[in-house]
């Protein structure tokens, strides 16, 4: 998988929150605020606690998802504008206890307190049983700073 446009990578690496949408059984969008993780392999990763796992059912049924980063304070890279990414998601949950821990360094870069909380996971055990959602981007819509009209569109399905 190739890397994403520089502005999009910068947003993904900085954002503390993204709007993440899955489609329910009636094909209606269901939106969740999620912390996006990017490790440079062209895919976007999210981790979802089993406590809030309804979205995982929806992805299994319909993997088409979208994710956007729109909040300039929660994503402190205002000069990069806002972005929406459409793609296919895959749920990786064979080992909810430890199967997501490889993403911990990327998570800790955004929330430095997280490793300490994971170390004390006995205090909130089910929250730390997590699935990984891996999103393969198909189309990216990038609105440069101040722009809310026509976005720059990157179609990644073409090669």
């Amino acid at each position, binding site marked *: 998988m190739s890397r994403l446009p520089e502005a999009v990578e910068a947003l993904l690496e900085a954002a*503390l*929150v993204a*709007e993440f*949408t*899955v*489609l329910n059984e009636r*094909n*209606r*969008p269901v*939106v969740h*605020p999620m912390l996006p993780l990017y490790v440079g392999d062209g895919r976007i990763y999210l981790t979802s*606690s*089993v*406590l*809030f*796992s*309804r979205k*995982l*059912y929806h992805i299994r049924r319909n993997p*088409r*998802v*979208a*994710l*956007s980063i*729109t*909040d*300039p*304070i*929660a994503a402190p890279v205002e000069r990069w504008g*806002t972005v*929406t990414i*459409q*793609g296919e998601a895959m749920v990786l*949950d*064979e*080992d*909810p*206890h430890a199967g997501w821990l490889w993403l911990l360094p990327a998570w800790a870069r955004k*929330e*430095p*307190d997280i490793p300490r909380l994971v170390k*004390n*996971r*006995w*205090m*909130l*055990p*089910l*929250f730390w*049983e997590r699935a990984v959602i891996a999103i393969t981007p*198909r*189309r990216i*819509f990038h*609105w440069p700073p101040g722009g*809310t*009209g*026509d*976005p720059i569109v990157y179609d990644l399905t073409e090669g």
Partner: protein
Amino acid sequence: MSRPAMSEILAEAQRRTAEHPFAVLVWVDESGYPMHRPVPFEVEGDTIGLPVTGGPLPPEGAPVAVILSRIRPRPQGGYEGRRYWTFHGVAHRQAGRLMVTPHRVSGWREDELPFLALCERAVPQARRYFELLSRIHGRPIRPRLPLAGMLMRATRAPFLTATVIPVILGAAVAFHEGSLLVPWLGLTLIAAALIHLGLNVSNDIFDALSGADAVNPSPTPFSGGSRVIQYGLLGIREMALLSAALYGGGILLGLGMVLFRGGMPLLILGALGLLLSIAYTAPPLRLAYRGLGELAVALGFGPLMTVGTYIVQTGRMGWPPLIASVPIALLIALVLYVNEVPDRAGDAAAGKRTLAVRLPARWLAVIYGVAMAAVYLSVGIAAALKLMPVWSMAVAITLPMAISVGRALARFPEQPYALIPAMATQIRLHLYAGLLLTTSYLLSRWLGPGGS
């Protein structure tokens, strides 16, 4: 939901997400993917107006969602005031704008539903997901914890201060009279701790069987049990084995101390303590269910442990440890009392008529105040009568902590999560007061009863 109510929700959502310049418009596009578009927004009564130019747009009449959100990181870590609203409606074009009149709203406001409560409400969802995972992957998959964490959680080991204080206080009283056998003190601590942890585990088993923990809508880190059974971390059978092992170890050590140090008086005290610990939640007595939990805890973690330790140290019975145990017995009973307040709804639903359940909400702080006054008075009177070292009056420095707990009980008797700091304060109050009392006996031995 009626339209006026929706307009109020919209107005509040707009006001409380003011720092975020965009709403996010969400729909399903012609290729079947969800699409997001960040757009400025205006609220007009019960309608959201989205001035959009160019770019991808939902078709006229398409179902859409509009997200308003706010999340702000704290410099020291974590977030403050997380909130988001998802408004569902249909998009219509009107004079260069998209108009959405929501018919449904969902979301989360952390100030209304704290994160811990949100997690607790979602436990059945997590349990169902583990069942699905087990089916998908063809093997049992359940939540896990590392062994140390599991034991910490299942036994509620952080509450061991309740045992440590009466034991070291009993040893300090013995030291005050010239006896201190450190190895026996170590063994006493281990035996008492094992019985205490066994009690915690058996308490969870019986509360799980009665349904008291399952129906508790607002467990906190200090109340509502360990929840390892409700979370699927351990089963009843595993907990029963753990409880039996802990009790077994404690009883064996206790018998050794009876044999070599305490004789019949220690056997009687130990048997009484064991009986109280089992009868606390186990049928037929179920003392905690009858409003007698505080009394059982006061006796077990007060005079029984303090006097028992004194007997092990000195080989004899005596009044001084009994007198020393009075304030800490009251304080540990108050730890339980304060911790029962958040559980009132769940306990009442399960027929667990604790003292906090039996009292009207407005009386909770009053009773607490009276009992705390008894703590300080008992120390003052005992010190004045020279039944305790004068140094023990230092316990008075914990008064501000007691006042803060009393105020919290008066302000938040029906708000479980607002009481979390008060519960932590009461536990520290017992710990600090116990350490001050213990130190007073040591100082009195070293410096003389009046400090001269």
